[in-house]
């Protein structure tokens, strides 16, 4: 059991929570995530560790389905059934040079710890932060703090530049030398970014959001086509080379349980009515 010690709404449907787990906080390295089982009859879901302090891990999540909605409903002082971790490879501690960090939607929650880490390793960082609309924009200040330049794009033009993160990326790539692109967000966005950088041979790391169960490399739920074979995202990732990922195997797998997710959600809505 892991106590929820703090929660804060950071944007509509998006929560930042602190959970007591000193052993995970101590072992944590940027890039790691945890597997959370909200309650005894729950589902194991992966969530990135956003930050840590002595006692707690901090997590930022968006309410999208039953598990995340249940977490969103929990009150401070209540107990989360299980949290396993940290797991996943840590992000490399390396000076790449000029790095473009692209975050879309709730991916910003993963971009913050990676950005801090990249910064600490001496990299020059340009951040492209995208959201559908201004009110869904996350961690502008945090990402501003770790970057030389912050470019904001919104689909509807309500803030920053109207358009997609990929438009901003194209512009940077045509004017500047870029040593590494790191992208975190919806799979379609990461695919689009990889498609842009591939012909230019700019190394691109993507943070894959495969569906997971075990998070320890024993179930194969998170597998994705990679190079000539298949890798398990939970132990070989979550950061992988975007040019090697076979996106045609990832995208359909993400919607494998669409029908079941809808059932869970509608039952939950009925319960709370």
């Amino acid at each position: 059991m892991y106590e929820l010690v703090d929660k804060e709404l950071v944007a509509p449907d998006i929560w930042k929570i602190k959970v007591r787990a000193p052993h995970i906080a101590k072992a944590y390295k940027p890039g790691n995530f945890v597997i959370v089982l909200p309650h005894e009859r729950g589902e194991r879901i992966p969530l990135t560790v956003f930050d840590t302090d002595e006692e707690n891990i901090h997590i930022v999540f968006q309410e999208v389905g039953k598990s995340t909605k249940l977490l969103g409903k929990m009150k401070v002082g209540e107990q989360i059934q299980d949290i396993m971790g940290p797991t996943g490879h840590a992000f490399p501690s390396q000076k790449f040079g000029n790095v473009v960090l692209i975050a879309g939607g709730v991916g910003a929650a993963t971009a913050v710890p990676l950005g801090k880490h990249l910064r600490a390793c001496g990299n020059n960082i340009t951040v492209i932060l995208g959201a559908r609309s201004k009110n869904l924009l996350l961690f502008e200040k945090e990402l501003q703090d770790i970057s030389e330049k912050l470019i904001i794009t919104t689909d509807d033009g309500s803030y920053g530049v109207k358009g997609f993160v990929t438009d901003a990326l194209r512009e940077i790539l045509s004017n500047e030398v870029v040593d590494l692109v790191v992208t975190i967000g919806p799979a379609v966005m990461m695919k689009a970014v990889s498609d842009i950088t591939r012909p230019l041979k700019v190394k691109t790391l993507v943070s894959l959001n495969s569906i997971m169960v075990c998070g320890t490399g024993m179930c194969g739920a998170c597998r994705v086509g990679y190079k000539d074979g298949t890798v398990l995202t939970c132990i070989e990732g979550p950061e992988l080379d975007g040019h090697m990922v076979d996106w045609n195997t990832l995208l359909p797998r993400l919607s494998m349980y669409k029908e079941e997710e809808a059932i869970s959600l509608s039952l939950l809505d009925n319960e709370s009515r």
Partner: protein
Amino acid sequence: MPLKDRIPMPEQDPKLRITNFDEVALGYTEEQALMEASRCLQCPNPTCIQGCPVNIDIKAFIGLIQEGKFKEGYYKIKEKNNFPAMTGRVCPQEIQCEASCVLAKMGKPIAIGRLERFLADHEMYKPQQIETEKKNHIPVACVGTGPASLAAAADLAKKGYEVHLFEALHLPGGVLSYGIPEFRLPKKIVNHEIMLLSDLGVLIHTDVIIGKTYTLQQLRREFKSIFLGTGAGAPLLLRVPGENLNGIFTANEFLIRVNLMKAYRFPEFDTPIKKGKEVVVVGAGNVAMDAARTARRLGANVTVVYRRSRAEMPSRAEEVQHAEEEGIHMKLPTNPVAFHGKDGWVQSVEVVSMQLGSPDERGRRKPIPIEGSNYEIYCDQVIVAIGTTPNPILKYSTPELLLTPHGNIVVDEQYQTNIPGVFAGGDIVTGSATVIEALGAGKKAAIYIDKFIKGA
């Protein structure tokens, strides 16, 4: 006097049992156990004992059943095997103890496993008589909570050690919890055995990945000795085109969802599982049979494809028999060469018929594809159960640990790895094997761990 037949095991009717997850084999009544035990000749030279990987005194425990001394019989087994309720159910008896019974030659060996199970079921819920040494407060750690670690932990706790078990998943038990289905090994039994361990003072820490949450080096600072029983849990893939299509599962994922996460009770439990209508299972070990029978219970028409013939199927004989009674089809010898799909979902398995060539070094005949025999089996779900390998997590964080080229941990005859004080046993050492072999390894390692600590 003509040799009497084995007393058949009472079982749930196949038509009924494919609609539920309750145990299939119901267990002997006292009367049936006494009748079966009475067939045992109490041989002066009981060959059965060598057939058991942990050399249970089978003659003695069956003798005790004959005298109606069930409690004594139970503790006779427990001298060598801590978990008879499990092994009585899942051991491949037909190639172990029962194969070595003198009556096997006549095709009617004593049903040793069923008798073992009978005693365990009869006694395990009663207060246990366990002799324990005084607590010595010396901390030792066991990594993983499968049978190897459970057995090591039980014996170390009895010797007075302060035993800590570390498990990556949220529930202990290893394959006993996440792999072997409820209808073969009820989780009530696994949980009860684990509770008895807690009664011995063993501390269980779940959600802890050794190599991630704590490193082995950290454990070595805190614990006098460490036992690694991390199993061989990483799934092997077929490495054929289309294997990542939706609807294609590794058996591990399928079984973890259904057993550990209770997806068969979705949406009462949150984890979903796809319920196929036409399911193809690839492989023919216990894992394949468990996956096939589980899919059947979720309502599917199931076909098993395997590249060798029936004689080579590595599963327990009883599982194949049960699977067939449950209406599972077998296509042998047949091998998948590709998966075909539409809109990201699997639609068929392309297979090739095989013929069996000359025997290899292990005596198994090598399957050779028959050219041009390819055809498609239409399906909406595939479960791949072609084996597992050691999980690499511990390796990534412990490069100094000596491994075989296959990733198994190398140990000496005392179960010690190349790192002093770090021992290992079970599937992580042998590759996928059996519950009783893992239990036996844990038990023997406990002896050497005790010697190591006392000698040091």
